[in-house]
């Protein structure tokens, strides 16, 4: 084995870690907003991601049947659509269910779990139990090979870029926009925020819907790396909660750092050990750290 070859593998391995970081962050982001900012345990997070994935399938299906020339460009539009669909459904769910349960956090867990099961069965009944495969545009497939023996996955690059955009967008919105101001006020003191004229109910609804919308986008992006089927969302839900809880629920920065930490630990142990063993080690490490710091890596100062 030559040195240049080892260097290539080292580079690709570095990118593998980076790309896992992007995946974990993107899947955790929507949940970080809902669970972190609102305290709602959204067990249907994975199913909102699945809605996004099915939106891509819809886009792929429509474009390949009715407008074959659009197959190469439908993807970005479908991602925006995925956000809108999941946003709309999130809005409805908040209005119909979640808003009645803010004072009973454990009941939201059960209620959203119920929603998750109902959504899974709806996908199965109305779309079909089998997995589907959206036709991805050619520019999203394969690898980018800047030189012989070095293959950088294009889907990884895409998810990385999308994650960067979405994360920056969310951070900006939370810290610079009126909505962000209202959310932060509501999180730190709901009664006081109400008293100074912030419509906390409307803020809650918007926040929940945005969280769901981002989940939809994540699901849409993950059609490039994973499966699209009724239970695809279940593949991501545990990792999503892991990232958010480990990072410290109320802190978005914590989510970023925790996604990075988990991704690097897992990716490196996976390379030197075995796949299942890497998972065991990563989880043990997380349990250990959470025992020492139950509030997660970054605890918000405003929460008690």
């Amino acid at each position, binding site marked *: *084995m030559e040195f240049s070859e080892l260097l290539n593998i080292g580079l*690709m391995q570095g990118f*593998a870690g980076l790309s*896992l970081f992007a995946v974990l962050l993107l899947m955790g982001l929507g949940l970080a907003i809902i669970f972190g900012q609102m305290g709602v345990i959204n067990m249907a997070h994975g199913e909102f991601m699945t809605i996004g994935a099915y939106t891509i399938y819809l886009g792929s299906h429509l474009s390949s049947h009715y407008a074959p020339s659009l197959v190469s460009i439908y993807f970005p539009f479908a991602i925006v659509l995925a956000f809108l669909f999941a946003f709309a459904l999130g809005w409805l769910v908040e209005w119909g269910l979640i808003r009645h349960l803010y004072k009973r956090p454990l009941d939201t867990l059960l209620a959203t779990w119920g929603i998750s099961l109902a959504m899974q069965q709806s996908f199965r009944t109305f779309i079909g139990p*089998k*997995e*589907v495969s959206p036709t991805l545009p050619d520019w999203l497939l*394969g690898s980018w090979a800047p030189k012989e023996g070095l293959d950088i996955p294009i889907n*990884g690059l895409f998810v990385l870029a999308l994650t960067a955009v979405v994360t920056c967008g969310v951070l900006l919105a939370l810290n610079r926009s009126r909505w962000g101001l209202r959310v932060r006020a509501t999180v730190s003191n709901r009664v006081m925020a109400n008293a100074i004229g912030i419509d906390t109910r409307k803020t809650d609804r918007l926040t929940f819907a945005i969280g769901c919308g981002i989940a939809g986008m994540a699901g849409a992006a993950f059609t490039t790396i994973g499966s699209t089927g009724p239970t*695809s969302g279940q593949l991501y839900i545990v990792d999503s909660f892991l990232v958010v809880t480990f990072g410290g629920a109320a802190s978005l920065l914590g989510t970023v750092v925790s996604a990075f930490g988990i991704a690097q630990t897992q990716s490196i142990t996976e390379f030197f050990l075995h796949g299942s063993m890497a998972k065991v080690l990563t989880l043990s490490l997380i349990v250990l750290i959470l025992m020492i710091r139950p509030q997660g890596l970054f605890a918000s100062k405003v929460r008690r």
Partner: protein
Amino acid sequence: MSKHNDSNKGATGAPASAVEDTVSPLRRRILQGIAALPALSVSGMAFAQAKYPTSAINTTKLAITDTEVTVGQLHSATGTMAISETGSIQAEQLAIDQINAMGGILGRKIKVIKEDGASDWPTFAEKSKKLLINDHVAAVFGCWTSASRKAVLPVFEKENGLLYYPTFYEGLEQSKNVFYTGQEATQQILYSLDWAKKEKKAGTFFLIGSDYIWPRTSMKIARKHIENFQKGKVVGEEYYPLGSTNFGSLMNKIKLAKPDCIFAAVVGGSNVAFYKALKAAGITGDKQLLVTLSVTEDEMTGVGGENFQGFYSSMKYFQSLDNDNNKKFVAAFKAKYGKDAVIGDVTQAAYLGAWLWKAAVEKAGSFDVDKVVAASASGIELKQAPEGYVKLDANHHLWSKSRIAMGMPDATFKVVSESPELIKPDPFPKGYQ
């Protein structure tokens, strides 16, 4: 009379649903008042009853009347496994409809009680109790995962039921009460490894599986075969948790190990992620030999032809098999379930279950489980199986051919190799434990 002919045709080609076969001719007869047809039909029925009186063919209180025999169907119509089990449900129903259209078994039409195991193993055990103890079904077609089979096995053995199990599985099991219509591990694995060595000159192998019993047992057999019999080398063996979608590091390990052949048994949601990761890492069919035990036409709908193009799958059945039995089967299946329906290996194996049972019952001249098992053990053969001729071994598994097929860009398979003879099932292989 014409309607009757139509339903008979269902047996060979165009199928019709069970309800249509039994109800609508009857209704038409009543409405039109045709005298000859009911007389003919009743005399046929009476003939079967005279030859096979219910008291004689059913001495163990199974749910059998003069005109009907009740069977159970136990699969996951809901939950994670519905992805895989739907095809089996459809194929079993098709076989039963076709048998009914031919006049049923020993003059009795088959009535199906469908139960949903809901992808939950205790539910499978509970529903199998219901089918055997409350409904007294004569046979059950069902289960898919090994876990669900293991969950119902004690129930079937205690209540002396009869189960036809369709999935290819890890072997190491043989029960009086179960017939295994899929391949056991050695049939699938040894042939594909020998093919890789002989045709593709593969000497080094990288074994990859999902982390549970079937891949682990299969890879154990594969490793023994490679190291002890082929004198080859295993350069890597990796297991990933079920549902893992992160294969980035694995791709680099493969590139580091440079195996002649990747031998894979990744299942479920991971399967799709695994092939997308290979494609994204530039490991494609034109550069790398890959043989898998877990991609059928069913999985291909999720994996996508572009991601599996040029890789090989080892199964006993592919939808594209070119023989008359299969053409009829595929046409009948698509006529019933739509032109986009795909048929995977397990779907075909599930289709065989009802036919094997029919052959055994007719040979035994009885529905009694003990007699059906005895008749089966003495050798049952099926000439009309879509996969070609198969026969049942005394060990309750099927003799069948193994095949290797290459994935095509349009998500179909092209068969490139087929074992010349039927391969004997060997659920407890010596030297591989």
